């Protein structure tokens, strides 16, 4: 392939940007980067070059915007912020790891690992697809962090640069030690089994001679040393922590069992009185660690504990001495004048200085319609600016903004998780019971000290709640894994239990039950001909307003216009918040609010063609498909009560009346605070109630936190969600009741597994109390009981999951 170096002034054939460096050319077509070239070649191979002749004004504006909005990365030149992102720097070279949320496929890997060819200052770039991290190693003299971030943004992979990601350090190390612990235990398990086996066959016959049995015992002892000293360490640590804080946990009986097992084996081997239980001991630790690992395997791609810092940007542009400089958000003081561009988030409560501004409060209130403010109006932190750049004056410091107060008010003492409580009580009784039984067993044989101690340790060994600790993680872990396939992501196993036991479900309306993407459009007015429709679509496509988008989608679908690319308007002018004017084939089309078209005060989006009033579009935010049947099913379930909270007015209340029980369960005009108070009130009514809150956006954040189980519904799993216990794809919401039933089944499966393990324990305990516990028997009983429990848990949960329909998930 021929390559030439071309001087400035040539536009990239793919993205339209100026090629300001060496550009790559083939057949008189030039590209700014390999990525563009690759895409172009692919398109031309498949005769899709039509993309380039299509001069979409929207695309153009996007390019323009992306070029201009690069200004917002200016703060990365500030060394204070830059330094906090670096992993290390040495000899003018630095390494930085950035999170790229939009990475998703093999071609992303291809493009991003070719970064050194695009920017010669980058020495090496490595992408980690699963975690969506890119590690870039670059020369600080040749390039800067800012230009790297700009390059990434230009390629469409904007790094996530919020306070939370800066503060977050990778914590893979703990997983690594976990694997090493497990591998050592597994290794010891296999080998001790091998060396114990001859002893079992030899029982009573003494064929192999004391020489060999001594060697085998010695080897077993050697293998078990790293297991007790290293692999089993977490159990001892947890048990010790439990004793210190005077709370019972299941690790205490486990630690006791391990010590008893090891101590007795050690004694037997050293005193040469028997072969010991080393194989059972290593096996036990191995199985316990597998359970632990399974429990720990949560989902890397999702973050649940996001707080306000994920919302607020790192920096903002401040006007100081008539110059625009960028400052870290933490340095903003009252009275500073900030410049906020389109789509940026306002970091602090401020007063509007520009004449007019359009603010999207959807993060805070959930209301998707933008609010119009005039000069002097108050804007609250967390609001997103739509349309032209605004100047605002800071009224309150970032740390004292209304947004943060909302977050802080939520941090009321958390109601203790029910499962934790149950397992704590269980652990307490279990430990007491085991110790009691062991002492009792020892007492029976009392005159005979040896058999008394034998029985005492045997009871502790066999009663070790190995199967018990495996049942929970495996059952709930498998439920979590299978649910994740369907688009429901649980925060931890406790959440599954909690969710299954939910008795009150509170739904948020806007964005949760309704979807802005599935709104219904209705047209009232003069009949529209095909030409008129094309005219309207042409303008709507050029507009960025969501309502225009919906109208265009609705019209093209209804009239079967497939090829939208050919339709484009000649002139387009949009006045944000009111409407737009465009020209198409010599006609003038205007669409906008009633004031814009100068008509009556009726609601809707008005249409005028060549100055003649045609009619209006009415957009209803309808409930998502399948929501109402789901609500009815929940209503029919006597154990569950449902409520609806909405920040909106009650104009669409009729949609939901059939899904809820009477007027009192439907509440409109609820502010975020009132939503949280409502949850509190429910708690006050009945302390045992487990409240499930289903919502989206930060306007529900307070209620999500107050409830026992907060479920955040999102359109895209990877997009932002407020702090919550469960993240649910909006696509699975129609099967909400089935998922709940599935989570409920978790506790019955665990109960089943408990019964199985208790049966095994009963057999073992009887033998132990009779003083007939042999190493061979424990060596068989322990793995068998563990494996049955694991098999039962996984089998049952997989079988129960078959009812839930497979909704396509990301």
């Amino acid at each position, binding site marked *: 392939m021929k390559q030439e170096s071309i001087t400035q002034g040539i536009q990239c054939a793919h993205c339209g940007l100026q090629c300001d460096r060496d550009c790559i050319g083939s057949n008189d077509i030039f590209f700014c980067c390999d990525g563009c070239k690759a895409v172009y070649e692919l398109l031309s191979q498949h005769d899709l070059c039509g993309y380039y002749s299509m001069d979409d004004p929207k695309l153009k504006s996007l390019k323009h915007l992306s070029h201009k909005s690069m200004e917002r990365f200016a703060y990365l030149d500030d060394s204070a912020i830059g330094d906090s992102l670096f992993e290390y720097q040495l000899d003018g070279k630095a390494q930085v790891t950035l999170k790229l949320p939009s990475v998703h496929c093999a071609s992303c890997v291809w493009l991003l690992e070719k970064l050194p060819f695009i920017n010669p200052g980058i020495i090496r770039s490595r992408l980690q697809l699963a975690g969506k991290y890119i590690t870039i190693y670059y020369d600080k003299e040749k390039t800067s962090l800012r230009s790297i971030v700009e390059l990434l943004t230009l390629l469409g992979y904007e790094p996530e640069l919020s306070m939370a990601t800066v503060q977050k350090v990778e914590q893979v190390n703990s997983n690594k030690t976990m694997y090493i612990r497990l*591998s050592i235990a597994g290794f010891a398990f296999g080998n001790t089994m091998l060396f114990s086996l001859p002893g079992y066959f030899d029982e009573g016959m003494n064929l192999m001679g004391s020489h060999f049995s001594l060697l085998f015992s010695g080897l077993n002892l050697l293998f078990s040393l790293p297991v007790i000293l290293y692999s089993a360490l977490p159990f001892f640590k947890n048990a010790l922590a439990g004793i210190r804080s005077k709370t019972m946990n299941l690790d205490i009986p486990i630690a006791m069992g391990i010590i008893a097992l090891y101590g007795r084996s050690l004694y037997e081997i050293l005193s040469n009185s028997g072969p010991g239980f080393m194989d059972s001991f290593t096996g036990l630790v191995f199985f316990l660690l597998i359970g632990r690992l399974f429990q720990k395997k949560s989902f890397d791609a999702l973050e649940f504990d996001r707080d306000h810092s994920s919302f607020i940007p790192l920096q903002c542009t401040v006007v100081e001495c008539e110059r625009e400089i960028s400052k870290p958000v933490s340095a903003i003081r009252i009275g500073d004048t900030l410049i906020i561009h389109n789509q940026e988030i306002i970091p602090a409560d401020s007063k509007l200085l520009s004449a007019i501004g359009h603010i999207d409060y959807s993060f805070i209130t959930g209301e998707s319609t933008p609010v119009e403010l005039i000069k002097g109006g108050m804007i609250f932190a967390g609001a997103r600016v739509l349309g032209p750049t605004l100047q605002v004056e800071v009224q309150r410091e970032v740390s004292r903004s209304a947004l943060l107060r909302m977050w802080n008010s939520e941090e009321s003492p958390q109601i203790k998780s029910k499962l934790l409580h149950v397992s704590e009580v269980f652990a307490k009784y279990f430990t007491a019971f085991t110790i009691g039984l062991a002492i009792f067993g020892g007492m029976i044989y009392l005159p005979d000290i040896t058999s008394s101690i034998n029985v005492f340790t045997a009871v502790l060994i066999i009663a070790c709640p190995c199967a018990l600790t495996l049942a929970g993680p495996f059952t709930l872990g498998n439920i979590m894994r299978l649910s994740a396939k369907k688009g429901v992501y649980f925060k931890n196993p406790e959440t599954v239990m909690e969710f299954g036991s939910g008795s009150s479900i509170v739904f948020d309306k806007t964005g949760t039950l309704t979807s802005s993407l599935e709104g219904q459009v209705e047209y009232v007015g003069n009949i529209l001909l095909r030409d008129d429709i094309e005219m309207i679509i042409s303008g709507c496509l050029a507009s960025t307003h969501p309502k225009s988008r919906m109208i265009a989608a609705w019209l093209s679908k209804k009239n079967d216009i497939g090829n939208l690319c050919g339709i484009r308007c000649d002139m387009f002018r949009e006045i944000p918040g009111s409407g737009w004017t465009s020209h198409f084939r010599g006609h003038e089309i205007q669409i906008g609010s009633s004031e814009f078209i100068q008509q009556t005060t009726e609601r809707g989006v008005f249409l005028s063609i060549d100055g003649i009033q045609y009619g209006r579009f009415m957009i209803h935010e309808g409930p998502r498909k399948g929501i109402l049947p789901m609500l009815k099913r929940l209503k029919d379930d006597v154990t569950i009560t449902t409520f609806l909270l909405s920040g909106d007015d009650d104009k669409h209340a009729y949609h939901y009346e059939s899904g809820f029980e009477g007027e009192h369960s439907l509440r409109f005009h609820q502010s975020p605070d009132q939503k949280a108070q409502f949850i509190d009130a429910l708690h006050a009514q009945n302390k045992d109630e487990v409240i499930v809150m289903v919502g989206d956006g930060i306007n529900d954040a307070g209620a999500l936190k107050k409830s026992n189980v907060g479920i955040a519904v999102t359109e895209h799993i990877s997009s932002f969600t407020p702090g919550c216990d469960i993240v649910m794809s909006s696509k699975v919401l129609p099967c909400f009741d089935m998922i709940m039933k599935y989570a409920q089944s978790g506790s019955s499966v665990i109960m089943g597994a408990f019964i199985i393990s208790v049966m095994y324990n009963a057999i073992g305990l009887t033998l132990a109390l009779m003083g007939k516990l042999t190493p061979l028997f424990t060596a068989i009983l322990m793995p068998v009981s563990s494996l049955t429990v694991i098999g039962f848990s996984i089998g049952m949960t997989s079988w129960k999951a078959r009812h839930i329909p497979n909704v396509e998930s990301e």
Partner: protein
Amino acid sequence: MLIGFSVLVAGGFLIAFIWAVKSGQFDDRATPAIRMLFDEQKDEDISKE
């Protein structure tokens, strides 16, 4: 004799595994599989010129 061998071999595997975990081979199991599919032709072209 054979016992010693078996222990040595098994121990060797254990050390190999621990080394693999520590060196980060298991940190990212998705990307290398894709990475190896890209041919390096382009790099050679560039270095030639």
